[in-house]
């Protein structure tokens, strides 16, 4: 007879794993990568590959140096790489993409303890760092082959009209490689909600409140503005990052509302085109406080007498 294993309950666990979750996210991101390839050519795919390669390699080397088992197979570094590349213009010099990836993994993620311990979203923090460091190439938005635009729709929100809806939806306009095709981003988000990887609270609250506040602040094209810029990418794939978002449903709604408010404020009252990025970075920082104020009420709580 075998030696019996003794451990405390429970004795069976669900089939989900960190890797299966990250795998689902990669799958949800893939239609947008395909869209980027069609819109911006194979350069977009190359850029994505470089970001993923640099992120995964950085993670692996870090683990070797720290003498811990390599965590590249949990796929979290690959997800960071793909999302970072989606935040870059397709024409970005590859060495800059490498610098951004190393920064995301080594500085933002691993220096603070690795997966689950970073207080900022690695891809997001890297995007902001690169925007400040490589302003020229980071804002040299690429355009689909013969799109007649000259700038990202964010810079010309005032001039958008109903005829621009379809281009905005399919991404036939300027921008960074993974933010323009709202259709595939929404598709990916729907898949993640369906698979139970994310809850819809943050994206809905974020996008809804951006719409509401943009309208309240007098944006001429509030409805179109939610398809423009990095809102879809940010709301669906970056704001829902587990580590840097609140736990409870109420907390997620508060977080989404806050991000939407900040995004609208920045978009309307500042010159920066980085509305979503800064809004999310700020919201990342207040997550612990949101958690404290929005925790679920425990079962059978007796009100203080």
């Amino acid at each position, binding site marked *: 007879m075998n030696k019996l294993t003794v451990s405390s309950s*429970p004795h069976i666990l669900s089939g989900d794993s960190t890797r299966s979750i990250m795998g689902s996210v990669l799958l949800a991101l893939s239609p947008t990568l395909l869209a980027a390839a069609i819109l911006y050519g194979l350069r977009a795919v190359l850029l994505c590959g470089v970001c993923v390669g640099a992120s995964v390699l950085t993670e692996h080397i870090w683990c070797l140096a720290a003498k811990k088992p390599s965590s590249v197979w949990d796929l979290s570094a690959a997800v960071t790489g793909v999302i970072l590349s989606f935040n870059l213009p397709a024409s970005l010099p590859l060495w800059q993409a490498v610098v951004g990836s190393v920064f995301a993994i080594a500085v933002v993620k691993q220096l603070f303890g690795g997966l689950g311990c970073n207080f900022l979203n690695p891809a997001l923090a890297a995007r902001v760092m690169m925007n400040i460091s490589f302003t020229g190439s980071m804002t040299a938005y690429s355009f689909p082959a013969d799109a007649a635009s000259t700038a990202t729709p964010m810079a010309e929100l005032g001039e958008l009209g109903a005829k621009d809806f379809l281009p905005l939806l399919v991404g036939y306009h300027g921008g960074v490689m993974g933010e323009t095709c709202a259709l595939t981003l929404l598709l990916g988000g729907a898949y993640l909600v369906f698979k139970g990887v994310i809850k819809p609270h943050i994206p809905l609250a974020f996008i809804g409140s951006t719409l509401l506040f943009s309208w309240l602040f007098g944006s001429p094209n509030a409805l179109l503005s939610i398809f423009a810029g990095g809102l879809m990418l940010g709301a669906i794939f970056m704001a829902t990052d587990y580590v840097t978002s609140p736990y409870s449903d109420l907390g997620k709604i508060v977080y989404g509302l806050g991000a939407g408010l900040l995004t609208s404020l920045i978009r309307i009252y500042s010159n920066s085109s980085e509305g979503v990025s800064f809004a999310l970075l700020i919201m990342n920082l207040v997550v612990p406080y949101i958690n404290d104020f929005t925790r679920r009420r425990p079962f059978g*709580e007796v009100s203080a007498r």
Partner: protein
Amino acid sequence: MPTFISAPRVRGISVPHRKHTDDSATAAITPPGEVVIPLSMHIGRPAEALVKPGDRVFVGTLIAKATGFISANTHSSVSGTVKALREITASDGSAAACAVIESDGLFEPDPGIRPPAVTDRQSLMDAVQASGLVGLGGAGFPTHVKLAAPAEGKPPLDILVINAAECEPYITSDNRTMLEDWEDLKAGIEAVMRHCGLRRAVIGIERNKPRAIEKMRELFPEKGDVEVLPLRCSYPQGAEKVLIANATGRAVPMGGLPADAGVVVLNVTSAAFIGSYLRTGTPLVSKRVTVDGGAVLNPGNYRVPIGTPISHLLSEVGWEPERAEKLLMGGPMMGTALYTADYPLLKNNNAILALTSEELGVYRIDPCIRCGRCADNCPMGLSPVEIALALEQKDLTRMRNLFAMNCIECGSCSFVCPAKRPVTQTMRLAKGSIRKAGGR
């Protein structure tokens, strides 16, 4: 009317059902030549031994007597001779006093057995205490205590909740109770309602037991005092507080008991046993258990004398010991892993599972990714991820402020954790450290 805290519907998680033995009618096994009966198989004060080596005992002879109100009697499950009184190491590591009884194979009932005369609440409580009944759902709390009239200032008891959720995977013994012992069950429910002045009863059954639901509906007509309530299959539907909330809409206040919500909860097999005891006067000496798991050759439900060595039960049923990775008393979500198959079958056992490594799965523990699933799925509304962090920082105040003591250890948080972290086990550590510091 006293007002109770109202509870929102508690939703749980999906666990596999694996109820392979749903349709397997209870079978007998060849009884063992010797039983090892722990004198105390309940929560509360230990029972006191009444027999010594060499004593002749019968089926139902009292061998250990309750030593107070929150204590329970223990009876012999065979007729024969007491060979020894000795200690075994219990599954939790403590020492448990046991009577080793050699069976004469005759199963002669104790000549003193006769149906009890029950006329009111007190005589019902006395009878139930005499019967040795403890909560058969697994907790092992002496049942008569729950039937007591509420203390001064407490709300009156008005609802009987019969726990027939049976939400643990594999286990089907409660299902078989409803299908096989329905007459005793009906009598038990009616006796408890009548003598304890409970105006209505709710039988909560998960929908994966359609035949039991149908049987109960036949037994208890619609619009009567006894409601048959099919429940969603959602773990831990059968956890006491969850069941009370979903069956009555009342919440048991934190740190309180079902009585604080005006409710008496009885496991369905406990209720059926009360009926059988009132009819026959035979104490709790045998149990119906589900024997299942990948290492078991003939999974099914079996009636087994209490104190039967599990190794005897398993070899009677047929098993492949070399394939068993874990041997569980109870279900895979809350059951106890045994260190030896020589362990005796207890009163509150409802299943013996010999699980293979394929059924248990092999997992790697990853870092916490703060997905919040543990908090999202906690039936008690707790935030295990944050309690674990507070434990790491040895921050007792924060653990208390996060209501760690409210954890019912159902295992949902560990089950849903994608990083396969031992979340429930961490909650136990947190509770332990609060207790150690004298907290509750």
